[in-house]
């Protein structure tokens, strides 16, 4: 679509506002993988767990609502290949824990405060992601 970049900027602005709200309100970094991983962490207090649970429910629930109830026509193509999805999910889980963060934590929250770790992580996972997509698409012909 021609206006993709406008929706990108608008959506990105919303993501940034969400991160700003969580930081200024609760003093927390809006890192999706960290919050998700925190759900199964031991030794954390109940209120924090509930806060994470509510956050994750909203992250999933709002797009679900916008897609299925409001029926905003945003194309979402997810592969029907269940083993592929599960493998990808596990790899993303391992990768984000090893890297201590993902696109929202290192990318949005880290780069915005000029964190050296955040910037390094972002450059590396974008590079690794690009390499992986190239290999999968052009060598194995998958993902297309």
């Amino acid at each position, binding site marked *: 679509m021609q206006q*993709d*970049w406008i*929706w*990108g*900027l*608008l*959506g*990105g*602005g*919303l*993501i*940034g506002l*969400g*991160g*700003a*709200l969580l*930081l*200024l*309100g*609760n*003093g*927390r970094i*809006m890192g999706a993988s960290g919050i998700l991983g925190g759900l199964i962490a031991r030794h954390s207090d109940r*209120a924090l767990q*509930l*806060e*994470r649970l*509510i*956050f*994750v*429910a*909203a*992250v*999933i*629930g*709002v*797009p679900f609502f*916008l*897609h299925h109830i409001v029926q*905003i026509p*945003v*194309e*979402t*193509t997810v*592969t029907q290949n269940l083993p592929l999805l599960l493998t990808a999910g596990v790899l993303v889980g391992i990768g984000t824990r090893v890297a201590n963060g993902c696109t929202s934590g290192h990318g*949005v929250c880290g*780069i*915005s*405060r000029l*964190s*050296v*770790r*955040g910037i390094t992580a972002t450059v590396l996972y974008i590079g690794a*992601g*690009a390499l*992986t*997509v*190239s290999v999968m*698409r052009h060598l194995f012909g998958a*993902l297309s």
Partner: protein
Amino acid sequence: MIRFIVAALSGGMFGAGLFLSGMTNPAKVQGFLDFSAAWDPTLIFVMSGALVPMALAWRLAQNRAPLVAGAFPAPPAAHVDP
């Protein structure tokens, strides 16, 4: 109580932002990561759009405490873990 409302609003904005920008679509993210054919730069705009409010928030977070609960995270480490 308010901290849970903050979490719900923040998560909702995060989810809505991902959805409206097309980032819930794996094909668009892959389109960004594949520089070869029809490169899709949308992710750059999403990232730029998100960095502006977030950078302002870090500025506002200086020399004060969070409005509802908790404490601000420690400053970022100056080194990269091996």
